């Protein structure tokens, strides 16, 4: 199978499987779960094939590989254009990896409307992969929005107590941003169309903007619209308050997908769209975004210190971690955007996806047994569920960036790059290291250490199924921690290529 077909399959196989699930009788839960799992695993296998066929040295006319380009809505200049570069490739892989794991993770947790649940999840997967694979601005927007619906259903139907509030908040927050972006997309199109460039194709837009740059005020306005949308997704302080609620109230699979993949869409959006489209504005925004990100790092960490709910704590930790990613993305110095920091940011996105996804899985796993997320209901669990504790601990270490685990590589690259461009930002961003250790160890201590409550009914340790889905994540955390070149080998050329897709006007 050639790469193009494989990529299209990767995008649409989950949705097709979702449709096929409709044909199954709703009460055959096992069959439905199995079918969904199979579909996602096949998708994952296909995406691994993409990884193997990806050529980092390719130097085609577009930065993308496995390109499919079909005129979809020619009257609006919209094409079905998908393709991957080193940046999106791994995000797609992350998505295809997280999806089967999310299904496995909710194998027993979801007992109601099982079929609908898996359909939502599968459609969500297609939406997410589509966002990363789209190389057409309008197609991207379509996927970006499509994904919202299954997500709010996941939160709203299968979530916990305040799920409706969380779902509404998530939805409205996201819509505010994405609709403004929508307007900006149209404005951008109108600008290019007035210059005779009538296409939503990314490569065309890149080239078009190089030839016909927007004026600086226009750039700033449009960048703000894009940035708002992406910043909400990231989330950047102070636009983050949807996140704790959504993460906390969502079912495990929802939280995993949210933390694992959805948040990356924001940062990915900055890389793919906001920065290359409006480089001058992006440069002008560097201090703003950096400061907000730094505030986010510290503020998020401080929020973690006072949380009583495990999921909420982990959710806030995402605010902190993603803040670091943003600092890296916006590491801009005299020699332009710092490729090391950008690579680091992408790496950190992946690492965060794996480790925070794993954390949510673990919380979900223990929640299934104890039906509590309150930290104070726990204590001494290391004794009761030692395997769980060990996995939890490793994940947590990866999350706080202990060397030899995945988190460190990204953090280190980001900090190195940022330090080259702006030392103050790097220093402030690095405080996250201390605070991260503080809240995570606090969590670990309060949940796992100490004396176990004698009266507590027995809690089973991690079972085989749970081991099955945790193992790849743990292996990945370690692999990413000690063999970063395997990943950066593919990412770096794409980032270098990315830097060529736009030009910053002198003294922006």
């Amino acid at each position, binding site marked *: 199978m050639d790469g193009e077909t494989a990529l299209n399959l990767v995008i649409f196989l989950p949705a097709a499987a979702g449709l096929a699930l409709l044909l199954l009788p709703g009460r055959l839960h096992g069959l439905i779960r199995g079918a969904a799992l199979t579909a996602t695993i096949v998708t994952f296998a296909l995406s691994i094939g993409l990884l193997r066929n990806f050529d980092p040295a390719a130097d085609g006319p577009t930065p993308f590989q496995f390109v499919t380009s079909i005129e979809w809505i020619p009257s609006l200049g919209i094409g079905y254009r998908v393709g991957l570069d080193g940046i999106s490739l791994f995000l797609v892989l992350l998505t295809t990896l997280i999806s089967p794991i999310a299904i496995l993770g909710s194998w027993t947790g979801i007992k109601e409307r099982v079929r609908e649940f898996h359909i939502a999840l599968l459609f969500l997967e297609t939406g997410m992969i589509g966002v990363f694979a789209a190389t057409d601005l309008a197609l991207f927007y379509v996927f970006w929005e499509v994904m919202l619906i299954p997500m709010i259903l996941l939160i709203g139907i299968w979530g916990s107590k305040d799920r409706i509030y969380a779902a509404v908040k998530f939805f409205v927050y996201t819509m505010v941003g994405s609709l403004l972006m929508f307007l900006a997309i149209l404005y951008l199109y109108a600008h290019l169309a007035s210059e005779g460039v009538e296409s939503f194709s990314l490569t065309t837009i890149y080239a078009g903007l190089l030839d016909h740059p927007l004026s600086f005020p226009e750039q700033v306005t449009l960048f703000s619209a894009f940035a708002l949308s992406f910043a909400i997704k990231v989330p950047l302080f102070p636009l983050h308050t949807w996140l704790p609620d959504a993460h906390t109230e969502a079912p495990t699979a929802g939280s995993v997908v949210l933390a694992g993949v959805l948040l990356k869409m924001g940062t990915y959006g900055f890389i793919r769209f906001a920065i290359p489209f409006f480089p001058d504005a992006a440069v002008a925004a560097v201090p703003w975004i950096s400061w907000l990100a730094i505030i986010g790092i510290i503020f998020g960490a401080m929020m973690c210190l006072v949380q009583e709910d495990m999921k909420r704590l982990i959710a806030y930790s995402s605010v902190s971690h993603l803040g670091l990613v943003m600092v890296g993305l916006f590491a801009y110095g005299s020699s332009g955007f710092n490729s090391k920091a950008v690579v680091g940011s992408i790496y950190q996105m992946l690492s965060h996806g794996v480790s925070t996804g794993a954390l949510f899985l673990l919380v979900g796993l223990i929640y299934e047994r104890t039906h509590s997320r309150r930290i104070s209901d726990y204590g*001494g669990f290391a004794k009761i569920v030692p395997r769980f504790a060990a996995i939890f601990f490793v994940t947590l270490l990866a999350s706080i960036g*202990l*060397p*030899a685990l995945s988190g460190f590589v990204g953090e280190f690259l980001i900090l190195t790059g940022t330090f080259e461009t702006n030392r103050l930002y790097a220093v402030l961003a690095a405080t996250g290291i201390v605070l991260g250790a503080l809240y995570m160890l606090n969590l670990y201590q309060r949940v796992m250490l100490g004396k176990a409550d004698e009266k507590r009914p027995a809690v089973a340790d991690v079972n085989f199924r749970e081991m099955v889905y945790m193992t790849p994540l743990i292996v990945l955390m370690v692999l990413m921690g000690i063999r*970063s070149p395997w990943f*950066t080998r593919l990412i770096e050329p794409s980032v270098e290529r990315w830097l060529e897709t736009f030009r910053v006007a002198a003294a922006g």
Partner: protein
Amino acid sequence: MNATRWMFLIPILPLAGAMLNGFVGRRLPRSLVALVACGGPIASFCLAVLWFFELRSSGDELVNWLGDWFALAGLDVPFGFRLDNLSAVMAVMITGVGSLIHVYSVGYMSKDAGYARYFTYLNLFMGSMLILVLADNIVLLFLGWEGVGLCSYLLIGFWYEDEANARAGKKAFIVNRIGDFGFLLGILLIYVTHGTFDLRQINTDAAGGVVSASGLAISDVAKLWIPLLLFIGATGKSAQIPLHVWLPDAMAGPTPVSALIHAATMVTSGVYMVARLGAVYSAAPSVMLVVAVIGVVTALVAGFIAMSQYDIKKVLAYSTVSQLGYMFLAAGLGAYGIAIFHLVTHAFFKGLLFLGAGAVIHSLHHEQDMRRMGGLRKELPVTFALMLIGTLAIAGCPLLAGFYSKDAILEQAMEKNLILWAIGAATAVLTSFYMFRLLAMTFLGERRGAGAHAGDHAPGGHHDDHHAHAGPVKEAPAVMLAPMAVLAGLSICGGIVFHDLPAFVDSAHVAAHGVLGALVSPSGLLGTVFFLGGAWAAWFFFVKSPATREAVASRNPAGRVLWRFSHGKLFVDELYDALVVRPLDVLSQIFYLLVDRLLIDVVLVSGTSFCARVVGSTLRLLQTGRVPTYAGWLVGGAVVLLIVIFMVLNGR
């Protein structure tokens, strides 16, 4: 075996042991666990010794490369190991002492439920520590640096069912992380300045002057800040003021851990790091002074606190802090070789002392409070003898290991800075005093209160399944005593045998004296006096006339204040609690409630939707349901529309 290809085995073997024990240890018999656990370090030790001698004879450094960790354009970090003189000494010492302590642990932990877990952590520690010293670049060093910190955390909180232990572990980790924060920034600054992480290259650059090999200009700022930031890391790891607070609490871990990690190896990695980047430090005299001052002040303060502690391990902990201060003093004076020399001898005698203390604690069924000890020399004669050797060594008894290394430091200080020397000298007296106090309280006199306070546990000295209970006090098993004996031997002769270690490690080092010359040098003579003075004072206050002690400590106002400060550890913990921990908590809570919940969520988010609803509800009132009103809207709207149209038509 080809060393250049297989050198990585030194750190990997213990790690392999850790993996094995970690994954399947719980299902293996204890003996097998012990075999795996001890096998790794011992094999590493053999290799280290082998290659140490190879190195010594050939003078060729062994370099080993194990693939890339980072490989980006302009940022290349390999898993590279380098066995040079310094790292070889460290590796041998670590694997040697480590092996002994592993063996000791087999006995010490024999009844513990978390046997395999314990050895997993311990092996993991060995591996990390060896990575730390063998790393050829600073990022890999940082990996080891963090790794040992992690193991330290795990082992301090080994008996995690006691909240206090868990807290102590966390504290250690956090405080270390604060140091690491500085360390990491140092690394970043190194990269920006030197364009490389290679330790050798950094040293060469720093020694070379203003331009690094990669063509980057080395600014004065970088010259000053690199060593300073790295030193922040060192203060964390090596428990120097102001980040020393974690080490005494770290005694919550099993005693062999204290011996290995919190005395012999991990805590000295800061010193190692300074020695490793000697050229960088030498290029910044002001930082050197900072290092020396911090070192000596720490030495004094820790010695002062150690005087009044009752927990036997706490005394040793503060003693460790104090001795580390000495090492930093030496390093700060530029005598890196001597610092390492003291590091090595300290590993011997402090390891011995901790193991001895462990034997005592083991024998007393996990009693750590010296007030409930006393007179143990009769029950534990071997332990007493070994402890005595250790005490003599640390206190600076001539001919023993500690004498030589400490003397060398004080001599350097005397030459270079008299104020530093004076403080160091005072510390020497204190050292002798508190060590003999410990010895006296533990082994001399009469047994006090065994079992009398069974329910009243000394803080941090108690473990869940090891309830202190009265029982027959008997000598530790041979498996524990044997390693102690080896260490005792090293404590006795280490100073003499390894007398040329400073020169081996630091090519710039010029030995001032021979083995015997040191005895009669002015500094050596003074050192002997300090040793005797401290020992006498301890004998006087704790054996001959305890009443005087009471009088000085509780009735003399000055004495009382001093005692309170000493016993209260200068209230640094309380200070930090009030200045950092609590404000952070309170601030976080305030931010959470005020900024996150109230300002953003309620005011901005809900407020917006509330406003929309209010406006909507108001507009809704227009919809009165009455036809005339509606007609009014229609006509009024038409009027306004026409007005707008005509305004535009008539150009406003």
